[in-house]
């Protein structure tokens, strides 16, 4: 089975939000209460019950307004930091063959390590149920050879779903064509983590920071030091302390004192 991916082409997005509705519908997620903030954007950020969101960045354009749209959700990173941080077997896992990352709500204990580990802040902690929620890549659909709900619903083809290599090649072609109109057009995602990349990637019209995305997404150095350095040393450290005590006992023996019964002082 080839690795699966989604390619989001923001130049094709018209901001209809069909993807967010389809996502809610398939995942049976309730509506979040919204507040009018002067923007067409529904919510300021993803929530435990909103896995996909179209962000609207408005800019003056001629005498009117230009929208910069970004339909975004989990990036489904290769070698995902959230999976690396998760302490419960099977709670946050990566599909070995297809590459997507999903939470098992039954196993998640709500420790929030993944919330800290994700460079984009995608997993959202729900305090009521004490679990973390995020895009599942429509695992139940994908495992049955269906496309993701958001890709299925997209009327302009801005969200493409398919095999990763094919989509990467299409993205590369598309970015060259887009550069004629959007000189800063670039592909975002496959270069993340020093090239390990993500399984959901974007064609952006502007710099990533324009959309509020980190230009160079990396897993924090602290996560690496914890899991790759401290973790392997832990067993040795505690083991060496115990064995050290044992060797000391055998070599030096207990510090025994003579009980002198005369009792100095008050006896």
């Amino acid at each position, binding site marked *: 089975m080839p690795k699966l991916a989604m390619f989001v082409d923001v130049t094709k997005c018209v901001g209809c939000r069909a993807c967010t509705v389809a996502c809610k519908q398939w995942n049976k997620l309730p509506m979040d209460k919204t507040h009018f903030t002067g923007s067409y954007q529904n919510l300021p950020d993803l929530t435990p019950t909103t896995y996909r969101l179209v962000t609207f960045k408005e800019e003056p354009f001629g005498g009117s307004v230009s929208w910069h749209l970004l339909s975004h959700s989990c990036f489904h990173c290769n070698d995902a930091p959230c999976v690396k941080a998760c*302490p419960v077997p099977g709670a946050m896992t990566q599909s070995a063959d297809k590459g997507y990352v999903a939470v098992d709500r039954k196993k998640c204990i709500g420790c929030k390590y993944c919330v800290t580990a994700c460079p984009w802040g995608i997993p959202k902690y729900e305090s009521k149920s004490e679990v973390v929620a995020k895009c599942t890549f429509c695992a139940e659909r994908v495992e049955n050879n269906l496309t993701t709900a958001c890709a299925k619903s997209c009327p302009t083809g801005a969200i493409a779903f398919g095999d990763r290599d094919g989509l990467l090649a299409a993205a590369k072609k598309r970015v060259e064509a887009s550069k004629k109109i959007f000189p800063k057009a670039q592909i975002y995602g496959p270069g993340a983590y020093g090239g390990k990349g993500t399984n959901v990637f974007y064609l952006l019209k502007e710099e990533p920071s324009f959309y509020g995305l980190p230009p160079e997404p990396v897993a924090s150095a602290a996560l690496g030091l914890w899991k790759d350095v401290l973790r392997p040393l832990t067993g040795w450290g505690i083991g060496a302390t115990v064995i050290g005590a044992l060797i000391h006992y055998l070599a030096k023996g207990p510090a025994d*004192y003579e009980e002198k019964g005369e009792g100095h002082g008050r006896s």
Partner: protein
Amino acid sequence: MAVHEIQRFSNSERFWHITGAATFIVLAVSGLGLYARELSWLTVLTGGPYLSKWVHFLAGLVFALCQVMNFVQWRRDCSEWAEVDGDWLRKSGGYLWSSHAEVPEQGRFNTGQKIMFWSTSLESLGLLTTGIVLWVPFVFPKGIASLSLLFHAFFGVTLIMLIVIHVYLATAANPGTFRAMWTGRVSAGWARFHHARWWKEVDRP
């Protein structure tokens, strides 16, 4: 010629230390169980991964209180530093390359105990602050939360190592020591051997 005993620790000293010790064991087991996936099996001892999260959180609060009280009750005794402390260190307290006879007479706590007091106190403070961040990571900047994950693990592992040493020295390595904490009393011979300066103060009114 009855062997007479000396009161070494008061009831409140023992209460906070023993409560701290009990919660520490719970924290070490649940903490290692929540530390990495391959150690998750340890959480069977504290009710599975989910309950372990709460057990670790609540035990952590109790432990923090115990450590604050331990700090308050022992900070004066553990802040007396003198030249004999350097001498104690040079002779490794008689535990490694010198014999006990060469070690200078010690007060209520010896140099090693004072170092143990300060290192465990500081590590506990570090565990409490990073632990608070880990409980509500989203209210802190991302960098602070990431560093807290790393340092909570680091302080936890090194505190376990320190406590292994502490328990060994208080039991097998030094007979007659454990009951100082358990019953509060030690024999005069023990006191003279381990804490001669203190023994002279308390046993010779």
